[in-house]
């Protein structure tokens, strides 16, 4: 990890103020997101996940501490536009983030803000729509699309700006299982192409796919590590009102009945492969 981090958060404190009262939300967060990394942020409602996400591209500014995006301080107004180009954000409600009345116009919205010349815009819009598999919907009004399709358009609008990092703030929580799959596929592919991803999520199976998991509790980082390191801490997670992915629960039940079987598997594929390993001889006999 010699290269400078993509996003650096240092000693971040933040409080909401309403009716003269102060509600501390983030209390001393320090973290880094590296280039091309996939980081998942989990925690129950009110733990500060979304507030943290909104600091990553300067939508909220720290009360104390600082956030840098490739060395640019989010508190400096002159950098804001460039920071937001580099770190794009997809929000929870598919309906509340589309601006225009036609899909292609919405994808172009960010480009218009960057004053991209019109000739160049058309190509970038086409590329972005292709990347999220929505090129056939170019001329459609968004209110006729499904939730998953709307979220894909939203991701397209960010891709057109050629970001280095995509922040998903519970972007799949309002979608049905099919819509969620669509989004996860798109995100997986983008990550494969080298874009860093920060996903704030309630779905432990999504977190299990990340390179690194950060668990928030009352505005502090309670746990941090690879999915395996984090999900191993079952007791602490359940105290924080969080789950282990279903694959993990199954693995530990199998382990209980057959102690040789590993009990720290959290992704579907891992579990399937482990079962293969434990039974490989037999299957080969079957086919042989």
């Amino acid at each position: 990890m010699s290269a400078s981090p993509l996003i650096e958060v240092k000693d971040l404190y933040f409080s909401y103020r309403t009716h003269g009262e102060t509600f501390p939300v983030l209390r001393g967060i320090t973290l880094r997101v590296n280039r091309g990394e996939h980081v998942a942020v989990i925690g129950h409602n009110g733990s500060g996940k979304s507030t943290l996400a909104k600091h990553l591209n300067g939508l909220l500014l720290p009360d104390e501490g600082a956030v840098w995006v490739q060395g640019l301080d989010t508190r400096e107004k002159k950098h804001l536009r460039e920071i937001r180009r580099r770190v794009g954000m997809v929000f929870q409600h598919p309906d509340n983030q589309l601006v225009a009345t036609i899909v292609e116009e919405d994808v172009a919205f960010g480009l218009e803000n960057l004053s991209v010349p019109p000739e160049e815009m058309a190509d970038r819009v086409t590329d972005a729509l292709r990347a999220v598999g929505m090129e056939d919907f170019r001329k459609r009004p968004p209110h006729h699309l499904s939730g998953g399709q709307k979220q894909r358009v939203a991701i397209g609008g960010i891709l057109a700006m050629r970001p280095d990092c995509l922040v998903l703030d519970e972007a799949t929580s309002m979608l049905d299982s099919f819509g969620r799959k669509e989004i996860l596929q798109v995100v997986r592919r983008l990550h494969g192409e080298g874009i860093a991803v920060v996903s704030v999520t309630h779905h432990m199976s999504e977190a299990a796919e990340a390179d690194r998991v950060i668990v928030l509790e009352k505005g502090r980082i309670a746990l941090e590590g690879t999915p395996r390191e984090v999900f191993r801490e079952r007791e602490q997670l359940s105290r924080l009102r969080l789950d282990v992915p279903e694959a993990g629960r199954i693995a530990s039940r199998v382990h209980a009945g057959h102690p040789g079987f590993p009990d720290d598997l959290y992704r579907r594929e891992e579990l399937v492969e482990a079962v293969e390993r434990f039974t490989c001889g037999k299957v080969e006999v079957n086919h042989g």
Partner: protein
Amino acid sequence: MREPFLTIRNLSHTYMKGTPLEHVALREVSLEAGRGECLAIIGHTGSGKSTLIQHLNGLLLPQSGEVTVDGLHLSGPKPDVKALRRKVGLVFQNPEDQIFEKLVGDDVAYGPFKMGYPLQEVRERVRWAMELVGISFDEYKDRPTFALSGGQKRKVALAGVLALKPDLLVLDEPTAGLDPYSRNELLNRIRELNRKEKMTVLFVTHNMEEVATLADRVCVMAEGRVAAEGTPREIFGDTRLLAEHQLGPPEAVEILHALHRRGHPVNPGAYLTEEAAGEILSLIRERE
């Protein structure tokens, strides 16, 4: 066979009939539910699920076909919608949006008041409904609604419908957008209503984990028709059906399906964590 509590026969519905925007939502749907049963309806956005449940308390009246709830017919010229709404409680998606009173108790009391019950009775119903969803009446009735957490708000909204003491509870996506802890809590409450209070429950969902924990029977809808019907075990065990309707089964089922595809003799319908682990254990033990 129990006498059916709810009968739907050949129900069809077309929106915007006679305009260029005409859209057929239901085609000849027939469905039954016994008293005390818990029925899940799954299917894609636009499969007709929401249109179907709006017929159950007379928000939509049958254009053709019949709907009968506990002996009350909805197809006649002047159906008794008010009596029906006392019998059938309908909880919409994100029901917390409908809360409008300043205090929790007042909002839960809105329904019983509108139904014209005397004050004492209203009070008792509010107490009963709030305790049922796990919100203490004495502690919460005078709390302001805006200060509740997302999960609590949803429970208050549910209590607002339960206060009408319906025999049939209909829920649209009851846990969408909640964190895992609130999700499990709400699911347990609904199961208690079904098992202990003997309420007939019908719920629409895209979350197969919900189906797995609650439903006695599942009805799959597609393009306004009932595409399949059966126990969760039958539905989850049917690979072809799941693929055809692009339904994401519970993770346990996906893992078993993956093993099945690789030639392992497992039953993919074993959707509970415990059962799935059992299937894998017997695979491993056979090998030894």
